[in-house]
């Protein structure tokens, strides 16, 4: 077997495992969200199917697949079918550059716990993250429904507005690590002996908040403002095509948590991780679970922002603060250290 074949097989196995983990993660995120929100509201949540309702996601999945798939008469057929695919693909591939454990040397072979260690990993995250906007705008436009159109426009404006501060708050860790490779960023946090969230607290908070806005999560879940827009850009979708928008949102929650963990919370770092690298997966997952819980917690606690407040927060607060944060970091790095 030549080298290229080995690389392809290796990547295919890792990508398949990643897709499986993400899909399972999606299924159980919906369950966890309902359980946690139920707990916050002093209810029980799903508890009928399987012990503690643990089989609920499977039942939901089967139900979604067996539902009637409808397409409105005026819809643009190609775009209507393409939109959920364009939304889901970036969600599934974005985790490919995030390392979940350090390299593990077994009998002279190096096992890398990352699908592809790109030297421009941060750029990849930004680029793939923005592709999802096309899915939103196409879904809104292709449905030929007024609710979808308005929801699509609103979320597109929201996502591109917050993209600026989101991108800028990735620059802080890059400046500190002097690399765009996510593995190097984790190594830099190891070398400094401190997570970047403590060196860059403003960047960390901005990154998390604008990440929520990028995800269209509460309190920025404007496109899904049920009381005004029914379901926003996926009003006309049914069956598993609706499920795919849902899937993209939850998988992107996992991906954004992974990004926050890698850039600001030390990635897979933890005690004894260099002695036994697979332990890194546990630390990484624990940090991601904590962030996911925080996202659900925020949804259960905070009311939704009004649209004008949302836009002015993005343009008048998040953008200038992110810019100042980057420049201040650079000045400190050049003149003080």
């Amino acid at each position, binding site marked *: 077997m030549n080298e290229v074949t080995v690389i392809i097989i290796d990547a295919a196995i890792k*990508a398949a495992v990643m897709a499986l983990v993400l899909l399972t993660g999606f299924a159980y995120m919906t369950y966890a969200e309902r359980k946690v929100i139920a707990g916050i509201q002093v209810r029980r949540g799903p508890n009928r199917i399987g012990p503690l309702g643990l089989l609920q996601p499977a039942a939901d999945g089967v139900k979604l697949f067996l539902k009637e798939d409808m397409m409105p*008469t005026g819809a643009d057929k190609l775009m209507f079918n393409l939109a959920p695919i364009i939304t889901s693909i970036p969600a599934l591939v974005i985790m490919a550059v995030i390392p979940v454990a350090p390299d593990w040397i077994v009998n002279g072979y190096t096992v890398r716990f990352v*699908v*592809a260690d790109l030297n421009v990993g941060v750029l990849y995250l930004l680029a793939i993250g923005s592709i999802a906007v096309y899915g939103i705008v196409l879904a809104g436009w292709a449905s030929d429904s007024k609710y979808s159109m308005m929801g699509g426009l609103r979320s597109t404006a929201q996502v*591109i507005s917050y993209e600026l501060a989101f991108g800028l708050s990735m*620059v802080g860790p*890059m400046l500190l690590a002097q690399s765009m490779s996510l593995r190097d960023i984790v190594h830099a946090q190891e070398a400094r002996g401190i997570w970047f969230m403590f060196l860059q607290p403003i960047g960390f908070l901005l990154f998390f908040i604008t990440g929520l806005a990028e995800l269209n999560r509460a309190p920025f879940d404007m496109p899904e403002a049920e009381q005004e827009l029914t379901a926003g850009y996926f009003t006309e979708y049914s069956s598993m095509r609706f499920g795919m928008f849902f899937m993209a949102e939850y998988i992107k929650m996992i991906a954004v948590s992974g990004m926050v963990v890698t850039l600001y919370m030390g990635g897979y770092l933890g005690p004894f991780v260099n002695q036994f690298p697979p332990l890194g997966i546990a630390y990484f997952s624990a940090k991601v679970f904590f962030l996911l819980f925080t996202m659900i917690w925020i949804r259960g606690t905070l009311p939704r922002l009004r649209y004008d407040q949302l836009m002015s927060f993005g343009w008048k607060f998040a953008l200038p603060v992110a810019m100042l944060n980057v420049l201040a970091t*650079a000045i400190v790095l050049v003149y003080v250290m």
Partner: protein
Amino acid sequence: MSTEILTTQYLPIAVTFIIATALCAFIVWASGNLGPKRNTDKKLMPYESGMTPIGGANRRIPVRYYLIAVLFILFDIEVIFFLPWAIALLQNGTSFAQFALAEMLIFTITLVVGYIYVWKRGALNWE
């Protein structure tokens, strides 16, 4: 770019994309074929809370959305400039670092002038 970087770094990305695309295409195909098909004209009307829709949905769009899009392009270019600058800043000696920092400050100040203008003209207010 050398072939080695292409194969070790970008080939796995391509493989991941292919697997993700196949998975998504399969889901769309399955959801289109597994469910029943009992369509009626009423069912296929765009949803408008029970009213019969008047006119199509692709009508004029408020100009604010275009404004946001144009502003996004302007400021996103700035973000893109920040990324390579952040990597190169500290790797070429102190005098280069001070020079690069001054350059970036001048660039940002130029943009901030435009930003203040846009803010004062009320382009960032949403009514």
